[in-house]
């Protein structure tokens, strides 16, 4: 059981994490904007996360924390 959390207001919406996720569970949150005015990312199927931290490794803004 792994958990990925986003510091949503630090996200700049580059979506590099979306492409690198092997489970393809990271998605652009189209229903909201963060304080910077970007659509942040979200994980809706948290139970699918394997805690590989690929997303966090790729993130240029250190938005992501991964627990396992």
């Amino acid at each position: 059981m792994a958990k990925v959390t986003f510091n949503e207001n630090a996200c700049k919406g580059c979506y590099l994490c979306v492409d690198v996720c092997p489970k393809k569970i990271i998605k652009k949150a189209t229903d909201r904007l963060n304080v910077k005015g970007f659509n942040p990312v979200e994980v809706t199927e948290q139970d699918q996360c394997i805690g590989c931290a690929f997303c966090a490794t790729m993130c240029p803004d250190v938005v992501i924390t991964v627990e396992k």
Partner: protein
Amino acid sequence: MSIVFEKPHALSDVGFHYCPGCTHGIVHRLVAEVLDELKLEGETVGVASVGCSVFSYNYFECDMVQAAHGRAPAVATGVKRANPDKVVFTYQGDGDLLAIGTAETIHAATRGENITVVFINNCIYGMTGGQMAPTSLVGQVTQTTPYGRKIETQGWPINGCELVSQLEGTALAQRVAVNNVKNIREAKAAIKKAFTYQTEKKGFTFVEVLSTCPTNWGLSPQESMKWMEENMMPQYPLGVYKDKGAKGE
């Protein structure tokens, strides 16, 4: 649950000012992770350059100095000679390191100054709005080469790693990239090796990181990564160009 990945301690809470998808953030994080892992945070003095990375003094928790344009290796030389026990690194872009700062870079390397240089190569001047850099590729369209870089007028790109690897004082010259997870891990290993060599007083260590500039390339972050692989990597092959610590050398 234990933490697999979190923000490194050596990185401050200040948010990066970089554009979305800019890989400066990844390299900042790698340097901070290495400082954490080698427990060097309190022992390190960084030298910020001029360019997009000018504000890097806000982002690292270690002591930082801001050098004049291109003079980071010269300032780092002074810091290191005054404080030989401290770990000193510079963080420079291609306009800083290979245009205005070519002399400082080459002479710091040839003197074998015991400092680490992290060199961000993204083939363009980022902060000033996308002008041609010494590392811009032949045919690359920039603000100052609207018809593409021409050999007849602008000459060929400079390969920093190859250049520095020719000098006796260089202990490590390695080129890495941050376009995918594998390469990011290799980049971190290279930066870690550079800092380790410095603590072992092996000499000048130089890590060139192929980076992207989505804003000035006029591409999305995803397209930029692809552009880097297709266009930059043939001109700037990844690899170790000099390693004094390797077996047989």
